């Protein structure tokens, strides 16, 4: 139960960092070789070598963050906020060097006057370190991903 509680708190904290735009702190939750992956196709098993909506290591996350923070990132200028709810947390595997946890998310985004909703499933591979849990791989199966996109995704979901 303690592990379950800790992992839940970790997931909530990660979502909170996105909603409060603490990009570097969000990136720092990933292990040095950690990857954030949103598959283009739910059937894909591995992020490497297939089309993906996101397939980012920490270097690419840094590009995205620096871009978002640049004053001339035109599409980032408007009022823009998100609100994540994470739930349905299920521990799938509990060995300390590979904790696998599934959860569901629902995210509401406001940009100018437009509201969009995104929902789907997270599957985190975590490891326990002296500094706390670190993400080895976060897989995001977003249900919306199979439909045409009205506008684009600016940052991680």
């Amino acid at each position: 139960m303690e592990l379950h509680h800790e992992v839940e708190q970790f997931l909530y904290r990660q979502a909170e960092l996105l909603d409060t735009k603490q990009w570097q702190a969000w990136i720092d939750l990933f292990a040095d070789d950690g990857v954030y992956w949103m598959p283009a196709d739910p059937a894909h098993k591995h992020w490497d070598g297939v089309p993906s909506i996101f397939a980012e290591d920490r270097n690419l996350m840094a590009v995205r963050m620096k871009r978002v923070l640049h004053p001339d990132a035109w599409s980032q200028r408007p009022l823009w906020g998100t609100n994540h709810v994470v739930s349905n947390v299920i521990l799938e595997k509990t060995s300390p060097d590979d904790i696998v946890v599934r959860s569901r998310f629902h995210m509401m985004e406001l940009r100018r006057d437009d509201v969009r909703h995104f929902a789907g499933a997270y599957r985190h591979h975590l490891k326990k370190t002296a500094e706390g849990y670190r993400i080895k791989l976060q897989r995001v199966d977003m249900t919306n991903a199979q439909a045409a996109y009205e506008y684009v995704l600016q940052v991680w979901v």
Partner: protein
Amino acid sequence: MLQERVPDLSRRLAEFVEPDRVRREVYTDPAIFELEIQRIHERVWIYCGHESQVPKAGDYYAVQIGRQPMVMVRGADGKVNVLYNRCPHRGNMMVGDRQGSSGEFFRCSYHAWTFHHDGRLRSIPMMESGYAGTPYGKDNPDCSMKRAARVGNYRGFVFASLSPDGPSLEDFLGKAIVAFDDMCDRAPRGEVEIVPNCFRVIQKSNWKIFLENQLDALHPSVTHQSTGRAAHEVEKDIEKKTGHAPLSYHMLSAFATVTIDKWDNFQTLNYPHGHCILTGYMGLRPRDPDTLAYEKTLVDAYGQKRMEEILGVNIHHVLIYPGLSVQSPLQQLRAVRPLGVDRTLTEIWHFRLKGAPEAIYRRSLAYYNLVNSPSTLVNADDLENFWKVHQGLSSEGGDWVSFARHFGRDIQKGEMVETAANCGTSEAPMRNQMKAWARYMAAQ
């Protein structure tokens, strides 16, 4: 001949397009949009897809041409057909999904009329008793699925035209056919195959705004400055740590490192029918082991001389008016599907060079993911501009859109208009597109 839905507009259109400027209504008037659908999109050759999207008999892929829901399907004879996605009985769409297999024949989900993959009627339930003594039956073409007037296939790329008249596909493409030659020739086996994924992104703007941006060499260092700088910083960090950053960082950082004045070094070639080529590319011929291994596969296939010719083709983008933007050196394309006067769908595909090493596929895949996916680091800022352009053109703050940059310096060479030296940021491609547009729109 298609029925004209907007008969009165034609007379005024001639006043809307001048050599170096265009009236704003061309982008925002719903009546003009309706006429464009009839006179351009439902007449000219429109890209449907690549034949490797439908590898087996019965495989289909739905595609929109103008307002018409069509279906591209592989027949039992191996030929790719393009049919109206409509049952001739009561009008039900034959397929509801974007893609799939129809098996040995199409079967309507409403009353089980069945059709061969070339559209011919195959059977109607209780046909003899139900239609005895009527003109309905296999010999009546009105009982078959209607076919696109013309279907063309160039090196696996399938196009359809809903008009029986007009130039052949090859004549229509003209010199822009290099888009497909360049892509296929870069494959040691001379062919590409689809990477089975389509990114679909909707732009809240008129379709022409997207096309005009494709060969606009002035915008990258303005629009994409943030991404270029961010990628450049990280690229330098990686180089410091490991000595070598992946090529994809260079492709992004070029938006900042190629400063605005350097884009005049590029050149555009403008052809009949509105097609255009932007030449030049940013460091596509590196000397890393992956590239060298790839070059060896090309030498083995074609010899040294031909390999040099193939890799020496100097193309950034090929625009095939009115609906296709091809980046042949990176094996990707964007098909433009106008949904409404202010809504445009882009369907974005990536291709694999048959016989090339995996590393070459992965290199262009990185570009596909970073630039062309729905989480794009690049197009996001274009889409923002497109929306703002469309909003601005909806206002009465001005009547004209200016395409005057480097106007008067274009060099006419036969049917081609070439930009002069150091005029890479010329608005010649937009002038060329609007010239084609005006010609199409004037044709009854």
